[in-house]
């Protein structure tokens, strides 16, 4: 090494110092690394936890007190700018809040939190929001979540829609209750695409070569390929995934896909880099409200419905206050405030009535926007709409491995 850098640090006209590493120093270094190796060689313990028993849940909550504050970690653009719902929450309950927009991506958030949770250190958040899917399942299986005391969630029991109770990814809402749900469909830039898009096959249409955006998330692209092939993701198995993988590969090799996007797809489609893209409903509606030429379509073959849920991570300092806030967001008025800003699917059906009642009091542009929202099938899906929507398949550990092996190479060209 020293030989390497000598030329950089030494005067070219000067003397040549004997700054070579001596053998003794080299040995000492080797000794240190050996110690490091020995230290690190112990491995990492497995954390797999058994499902909680009722008694454990009760034991955890017994004697837990309200502390008067709560820290809420959430995704960006998931709370009105003025944080009004949280302010009224504080007025009514006296619980102070801290709101942090620290979650951008499930994998990322899980990857960063995992070592801390494994070491038994608190994350510093009382509520976190994650999407149903691979990483949420891992949180459950690794025992990183606190089972919820539903006795303290009366508004959830009274106001949550039946579709949001007892979901397949979290039986009996043991660990989570929904914050918002959303639909993965197709965003269309109407400035460039003149035909009416209804089918998912448009994403495979050579006419749009190089102008189609797909998502980099493996569960998202897998679902879309399966819709295109007429496979129900919930019932899919390995051979179906292989077919779906081939379908995506074909799309990629034909040069139809411009790129596999993360959240940045919405900018790309709004400015016309891509004309059609897989998209999350609320993003598109927010852009539409801002006057950009984008439209959201739930393809006739199907779309994906996903749920972003609130949960309490292990080591949370204020679990009772966390439950109070989670439940507060299920009051119809509060839920309506959220829905109006977020434009995703609310888990509280009564919001539609609250907003419909509000239409009369508005005028002009605002009235039109509100009417549009209340009648939108991607914000308040009807039963017929729900019939077309599917979840991600909940994968076992062994399945996850083969699933990722099929779909990851597609996005990692």
């Amino acid at each position, binding site marked *: 090494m020293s030989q390497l850098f000598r*030329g950089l640090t030494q005067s070219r*006209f000067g003397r040549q110092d004997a700054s070579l590493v001596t053998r003794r120093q080299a040995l000492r270094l080797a000794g240190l*690394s050996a110690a490091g190796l020995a230290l690190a060689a112990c491995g*990492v313990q*497995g954390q797999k936890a058994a499902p909680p028993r009722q008694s454990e849940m009760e034991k955890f909550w017994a004697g837990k007190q309200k502390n008067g504050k709560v820290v809420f970690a959430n995704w960006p653009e998931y709370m009105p700018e003025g944080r009004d719902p949280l302010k009224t929450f504080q007025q009514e309950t006296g619980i102070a809040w801290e709101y942090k927009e620290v979650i951008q991506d499930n994998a990322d958030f899980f990857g960063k939190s995992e070592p801390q949770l494994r070491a038994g250190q608190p994350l510093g958040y009382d509520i976190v929001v994650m999407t149903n899917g691979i990483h949420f399942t891992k949180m459950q299986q690794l025992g990183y979540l606190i089972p919820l005391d539903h006795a303290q969630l009366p508004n959830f029991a009274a106001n949550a829609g039946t579709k949001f109770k007892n979901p397949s990814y979290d039986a009996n809402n043991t660990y989570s209750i929904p914050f918002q749900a959303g639909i993965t469909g197709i965003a269309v830039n109407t400035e460039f695409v003149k035909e009416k898009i209804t089918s998912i096959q448009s994403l495979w249409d050579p006419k749009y070569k190089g102008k189609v955006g797909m998502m980099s998330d493996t569960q998202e692209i897998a679902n879309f390929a399966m819709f295109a092939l007429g496979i129900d993701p919930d019932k899919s198995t390995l051979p179906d995934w292989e077919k779906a993988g081939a379908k995506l590969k074909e799309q990629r090799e034909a040069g139809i896909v411009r790129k596999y996007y993360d959240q*940045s797809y919405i900018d790309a489609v709004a400015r016309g880099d891509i004309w059609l893209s897989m998209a999350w409903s609320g993003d598109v509606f927010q852009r539409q409200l801002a006057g950009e030429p984008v439209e959201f379509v739930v393809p006739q073959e199907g779309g994906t419905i996903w749920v972003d849920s609130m949960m309490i991570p292990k080591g949370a300092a204020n679990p009772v206050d966390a439950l109070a806030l989670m439940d507060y967001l299920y009051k119809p008025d509060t839920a309506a405030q959220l829905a109006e800003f977020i434009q995703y699917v609310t888990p509280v059906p009564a919001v539609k009535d609250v907003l419909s009642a509000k239409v009369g009091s508005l005028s002009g542009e605002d009235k039109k926007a509100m009417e549009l929202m209340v009648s939108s099938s991607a914000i308040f899906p009807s039963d017929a709409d729900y019939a077309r929507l599917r979840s991600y398949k909940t994968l076992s550990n062994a399945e996850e491995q083969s699933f990722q092996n099929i779909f990851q190479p597609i996005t990692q060209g």
Partner: protein
Amino acid sequence: MRRVRAALAPYLLALPGGLWLAVFLVVPIATMASVALQTGNLMDGFSQTFNIAIFGEVFAQYHTQFLRSIVYGGIATVIMLVVAYPMAYWIAFKAGRRKSVYLFLILLPFFVSFVLRTISWGFLLADDGIVLAPLRDLGLIPDDFHILATTTAVIGGLVYNFLPFMVLPIYVALERVDPRVIEAAQDLYAGRFQAFVRVVLPLSLPGVFAGVLMTFIPATSDPVNAQILGGTSNTMIGNIIYTEYLVNNDYPAASALSFMLMAVLLIGIFVYARALGTENVMEAAAR
């Protein structure tokens, strides 16, 4: 007593740096090596099995991205060298009193976050953006021409982001060239070209060497440019390591890839040091 203290002094002086290196360099690298050799998964835990085969496995799986990264890093470094050398030369010899202004201008982009600057390129070079749309309207480029999501965009991003790290060391080396040496060369009937090739260039080689080190290494392992400016087949090894670590939670594979990347870069640098070696630089300077 005084003699003992004097004997100990160099060691005591080296202690803070030594500790720093031990804690933040040696331990992490040893840990990384150890994790790479473990097997298991997140659910069942990882245990040490000295699984040397992992290096072959990850290379077989990701050799495309590995080689691509080295090629991209290499091309970007060469372009930077070609662009940076005249810049540094001009600032060192021709800029006169405004030297510090130009140096400041080169550093100015650093006041804005690296990621933000790269995202801004996404806006500037958008298919329908302020650069390409007028050119297309004038009929200068075909309808389906685009820059984003291509290899050119990724390499361009690398060049843009790391260029100052090439300019500054070369500038420092050129700045230290004594003008009298050039005069002497001219007195000895060297033309301007001769004087540059035989005197100035060799004297600036350590700067070039430092510049190449400071750009090739980060450019090769950078995930940001490929992520933001790249398309479906521009994924670099940095993106793969990121995915293995954060998405798949496959810590051994991520560590093995990082370790291999480090090893390849180090070997490359040693070969390079030999080829353009510091000794040769000294010889060239003395000639």
